[in-house]
């Protein structure tokens, strides 16, 4: 793996924090729920970390914890996606046909 230096990681942290702020800053209130739900899905990326942690677990205890972690993370990612998509599917304008 490419090792991130501590400072490179800090720069990523800072820039990502500003990105998150800017992306959300001008969102209309009607999208607050889908957006919260969408960002809830995005932190489902914890699945990747949970998989790596389980993959490298070498004792029964850590394997058990890792297993629980992957179950939880998969639930976060999949559940977050399903409910966000369902909500966003419903938003339509009165000008669109088929509404």
């Amino acid at each position, binding site marked *: 793996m490419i090792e991130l230096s501590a400072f490179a990681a800090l720069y990523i942290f800072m820039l990502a924090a500003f990105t998150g702020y800017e992306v959300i800053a001008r969102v209309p209130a009607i999208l607050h729920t889908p957006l919260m739900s969408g960002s809830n899905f995005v932190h489902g990326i914890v699945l990747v970390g949970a998989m790596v942690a389980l993959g490298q677990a070498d004792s029964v205890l850590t394997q058990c914890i890792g297993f629980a972690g992957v179950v939880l993370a998969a639930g976060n990612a*999949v559940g977050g996606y399903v409910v966000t998509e369902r909500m966003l599917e419903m938003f339509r304008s009165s000008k669109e046909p088929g509404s």
Partner: protein
Amino acid sequence: MSAAAAGNLAIQVSYYVAAFLFIMGLKRMSSPVTAASGIRWAGLGMLVATLITFAYPGMGNYLLMTTAIFIGGVLAWWTGKRVPMTDMPQMIALYNGMGGGAAATISAIELLKGGGHSEVFVALAVLGGLIGSVSFSGSLIAFGKLQGLIRRSIRFRGQNIVNLLILLAAAGIGASLIAGNGGQQSIVAMFLLALLLGLTMTLPIGGADMPVVISLYNALTGLAVGFEGFVLNNAAMIIAGTVVGSAGSLLTQLMAKAMNRSLANVLFSGFGETAVAGGEARGSLKPIEAADAAIMMAFAQKVIIVPGYGMAVAQAQHKVWELTQLLTERGVQVKFAIHPVAGRMPGHMNVLLAEAGVPYDLIYDLDEINAEFETADVALVIGANDVVNPVARSDPSSPIYGMPILNADKAKNCIVIKRGQGAGFSGIENELFYLDNTRMLYGDGQAMVNELIQTIKEL
């Protein structure tokens, strides 16, 4: 290039692409026109990142891993597809808690493995573990409250001090871990304390404050994921987690601001306790029959509908849309006014109205519509209470003084559909109900709107 190096490159490129897709996806979700495609972009990013992780070097336990993904994924898919829109807040809280819990397990594994890591590594693992655990147990309590499993808000004297002591104890153990002391027992104790803190922090918070709480735990989970990203040296996790952490913090601030309260006040005040019933409301409550209310609306030029949590409880959103269509056919202009904290999560009312088929261009935010109430013939309040209480403007001694409200009282007539005569969540009498131009329509939201519809149809 060796095969291993090529594999590493493929993993890094995939994570890079995933991070890009997440940010683009969230950006697209910030406009109703592109929102639906936004979640698919982000979903694609997640798929890419997950699949490539199977090729991560130095891993085993693939059978366990696939089984776990299958169990978690299928359960979440099944529940996510079936949950009714009115139950969305608790499902989001639940999925969010799962993410926090997952971040905590990563931290637990890395700490238990031990092996002479730097202080920074341990510190980040501890921090992510603490935050993730609080988010996990706190979100589960929020889920339990919204689902109606936990009906009471449990408060006792000195609660904040107890919470503070738990936090200090957990942080103290964390600090000793960072310093290189402590073994398995300390690690377990730290996580148990953090889980307990999530419980004791969330139990006293009432239902109407849930928009702030859900949003806060979402941000905390993001942050925990970001910290664990540092621990695992995974840039995709750092970026996705931090973006969510900062976006969620902003959203939390917006929610707290919409109630004119600080985040600290929401978390630590135990609202119902401090609220002393304000002065006796003047005047009397004037009931109205559904038929009369229907005629009033049918011959109006402009009607503004103000929905609140009561509409969600009564599942009245479909009937409300039917009523809107009927009125529109008669040439009445109908608009919806949504308060930022109406309901149990940010944007709750918007989702329910969208479910019923209400186009989003009929729906207006507080700032957009407040000036229009003066030109409205009827303001129809369905299951909303504190967000239309004029004491927030007029009475500095009221606990909700200063909270921006919808000016339903300024409409020429105001019809309030309400289940019975009681105060709102905050326990404060609503002066709106006693005004000369207000009429109370007592009954279940859905049944009453249905009666309105029947009367208008017969006109």
